[in-house]
């Protein structure tokens, strides 16, 4: 995968990026008051998660649920500012993490990080060598610590890396070609978390997940599988020391059980409340916290399908779907209608209400123009459950009813989540016009993963067999751009092309609602799938 690098020749723009401004902000917030609650001593926050977390190894394959715990334990070199809500900052800002600063060479090939003077919670120092050790675990098959699982899960992050070296607190990463999404990818899930090499040596690949050691704001205490993961404050944290003494993550896979646990006071925060419980809970005085994470619940068109390969049909379908109705009625306002392929939590977001607002007349006209005045029959595949899928079947049924209004007869083929993922990534069968999934990143690079002709299934997530040389070219330029602003512009351009061609039908963006007990303070829903707990306290 690393070898299959983007072949666009690098541009010559020179730019050095520093993060001084961000550091200032950090310094200010460190002095901010908020110690009032911490006098009470034993502050323990209990979070009801929607499912059991996986291994607490940030470099092994895992979903958001796991990463939400990892995020509290591990630092990444670069991180996002999650202290601002989505309203304040629709797109999260990058800020220094374990790297206090960094430079990028003008050709965009060499990244030099200055590693912060910090310690892992096992007492070993954080230095560039430690970070290099982590990188080689994911990237270098020749290194003793190499793990295929870690490599497989971080493939997009390290695909262009050519070399890594360390010297004291300085880490140098050399790319085979410019890769503009790199910093944002570093901040996210999929390989960014830095583990104590001593702990990795001690516990090994299999043990580290149960004995996680990082340098984050909380340190791991214990884990009773299926029952709880307990973290406690890292008093020696290099950044803001959290106000909470302890955080307990409890897996409660059943939505009703989560709500019941919140009501009975067993937990303070719950994720993914069932939409129907939200209004009642708010009435009872519970707090609702929502954001706009990089999440798109969308349909993929199959470009091998007789009907959906027709652009007019794709546009007609887009126009026939009632996104407002779904968000408000079916989902009770827990999601926003999606007006772009990219999520709003993304620099390349372009709101295209013109392309996506419901218009049945126009949809019918387009269908007639395409030669299907009476509509046609096709299949929509989706899962019955799954991470981020909200309530896939009722949503699919909703779309089924919308499309029936323009004469399109949709058959729903719903399978259980893991089998669905398996078949989804094998590519969409010819007779299936629409395949649903929810996904998204704060990096616009996400568009590339979905539409590049080099990533057509089964070689990548482009399961609709979309291939557009024009789009490929623009995205290639965006990836190798060395100027952030220029890259963003290119991504927006790519975005427009995809929208115009109606590659997808984005439906909704999840608001990722959390319900908090009345006494929870300082919880912020930022434009990300995970959250920062350093500022959270209990009354």
């Amino acid at each position, binding site marked *: *995968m690393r070898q299959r690098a983007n072949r666009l020749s690098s541009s010559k723009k020179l730019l050095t990026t520093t993060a001084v401004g961000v550091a200032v902000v950090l310094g200010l917030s460190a002095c901010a008051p908020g110690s009032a609650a911490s006098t009470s001593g*034993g502050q*323990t926050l*209990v979070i009801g998660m929607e*499912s*059991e977390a*996986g*291994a607490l*190894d940030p470099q*092994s*394959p895992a*979903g958001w649920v796991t990463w939400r715990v990892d995020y509290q334990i591990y630092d990444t070199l670069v991180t996002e500012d999650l202290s601002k809500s989505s309203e304040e900052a629709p797109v999260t800002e990058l800020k220094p993490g374990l790297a206090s600063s960094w430079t990028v060479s003008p050709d965009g090939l060499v990244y030099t990080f200055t590693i912060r003077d910090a310690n892992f919670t096992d007492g070993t120092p954080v230095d560039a060598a430690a970070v290099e050790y982590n990188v080689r675990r994911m990237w270098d098959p020749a290194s003793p610590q190499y793990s*295929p*699982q870690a*490599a*497989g*899960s*971080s*493939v*997009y992050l390290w695909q262009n890396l050519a070399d890594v070296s360390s010297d004291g607190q300085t880490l140098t990463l050399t790319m085979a070609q410019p890769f503009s999404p790199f910093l944002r990818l570093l901040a996210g899930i*999929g390989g960014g978390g830095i583990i104590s090499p001593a702990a990795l040596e001690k516990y090994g*690949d*299999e*043990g580290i*997940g*149960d004995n996680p050691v990082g340098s984050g704001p909380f340190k791991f205490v214990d884990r*009773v*599988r*299926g*029952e*709880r993961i307990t973290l406690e404050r890292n008093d020696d944290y290099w950044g803001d020391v959290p106000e909470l003494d302890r955080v*307990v993550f*409890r*897996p*409660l*896979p*059943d939505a*009703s*059980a989560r709500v*019941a*646990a919140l*009501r*009975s006071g*067993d*937990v303070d925060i719950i994720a993914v409340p069932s939409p129907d419980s939200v209004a009642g809970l708010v009435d009872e005085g519970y707090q609702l916290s929502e954001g706009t994470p990089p999440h798109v619940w969308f349909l993929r068109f199959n470009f091998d399908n007789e009907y959906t390969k027709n652009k007019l049909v794709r546009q007609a379908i887009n126009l026939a779907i009632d996104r407002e109705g779904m968000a408000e009625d079916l989902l009770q306002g827990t999601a926003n209608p999606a007006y772009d392929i990219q999520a709003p939590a993304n620099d390349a977001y372009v709101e295209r209400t013109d392309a996506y607002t419901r218009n049945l007349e126009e949809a019918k006209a387009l269908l007639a123009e395409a030669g299907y005045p009476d509509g046609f029959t096709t299949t929509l595949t989706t899962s019955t*459950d799954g991470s981020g899928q909200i309530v896939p079947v009722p949503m699919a049924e909703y779309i089924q009813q919308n499309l029936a209004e323009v004469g399109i007869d949709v058959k729903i083929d719903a399978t*259980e*989540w*893991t*089998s669905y*993922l*398996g078949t989804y*990534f094998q590519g969409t069968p010819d007779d299936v016009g629409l395949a649903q999934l929810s*996904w998204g990143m704060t990096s616009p690079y996400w568009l590339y993963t979905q539409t590049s002709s080099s990533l057509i299934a*089964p*070689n*990548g*997530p482009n399961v609709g067999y979309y291939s557009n040389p024009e789009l490929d070219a623009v995205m290639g330029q965006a990836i190798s751009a060395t100027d952030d602003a220029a890259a963003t512009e290119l991504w927006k351009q790519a975005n427009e092309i995809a929208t115009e061609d109606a590659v997808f039908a984005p439906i909704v963006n999840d608001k990722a609602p959390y319900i908090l007990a009345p006494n929870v303070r300082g919880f912020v829903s930022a434009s990300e799938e995970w959250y920062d707990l350093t500022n959270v306290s209990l009354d």
Partner: protein
Amino acid sequence: MTALITRRVVSTLLVLLGVSVVVFLLVQLVPGDPARVILGQNATPAAIAEVRQALGLDKPIVVQFMDYLGGLLRGDLGTSLIVNSPVIDIVLPRFMNTLILAGAALIICVGVGVPLGLLAAKKQYSVFDRASMFISMTGASVPVYWMALLLIGFFGLTLGWFPTSGMYDSREPGGLPDLLLHLVLPAVAAALVPLAVIARMTRSVTLEVLEQDYVRTLRASGLPESTILWRHALRNALPQIVTVIGLQVGYLLGGVIFVEVVFGWPGLGGQLYTSISQRDMPTIQAGVLFIAVVFVAVNLLADISVGVLDPRSRKQAVA
């Protein structure tokens, strides 16, 4: 007697061997690729191939089975696809929790079901008999998870008597009292169906016993009905009741999955639920194996205690 036990133990071991074969085959039959399960959305063909090799999935199936059996004998049940740690570490603690829950439920089943059945038999055709049998028949027809939710709603939320989830308090995990408090609702929910079955079986077995000739001898000796029921009828019905209880343990171990999910009980059932949705086959394999082993063992135990309970089989008479 000794011969009988030996024979039963040997046949149980054979059954267990069969069980492990079935469990292994179960995984082989699952469509889809464990490597794909591991890597999820980020999977690329190269990464998948690499992971497959790391897991030994590229070996012939017979070799895989021998590896699996060898592992079993060493107590190695494989590595979880999702959590990347030895399955035994995941399954064993949760299995213990399931045993706690199932054990508590069993105590309720036996403690309530047997007396209920005895009394119903004693008062055959009375209002008490008909009512308790109707209720227990109803109990056997109620979907467990539905009952569990009702219990949560009423005793957990409306009355607030019991916690609704987990095994211990989240903030200050207490010792045994805390555990017992958390145990009440899930144990009751899990006990319901087996309780109904045990009550019905106890009733019919007791009725049979009460028709025996020796009961008339006992009555003619002037023994009070209560002594006849609780001492003699129970004692004679016990072997059959124990057999039924042994079989109900199977239902308990299977049905407990619903209870664990709804009550967030960190047991094997909840783990299986998670593992099934994650297609974590080694964990499913181990979990199913554990439960099957317990079930087989419990029934072996039931068989043996039936032998001990019945004086007639204690000394095998020469035919």
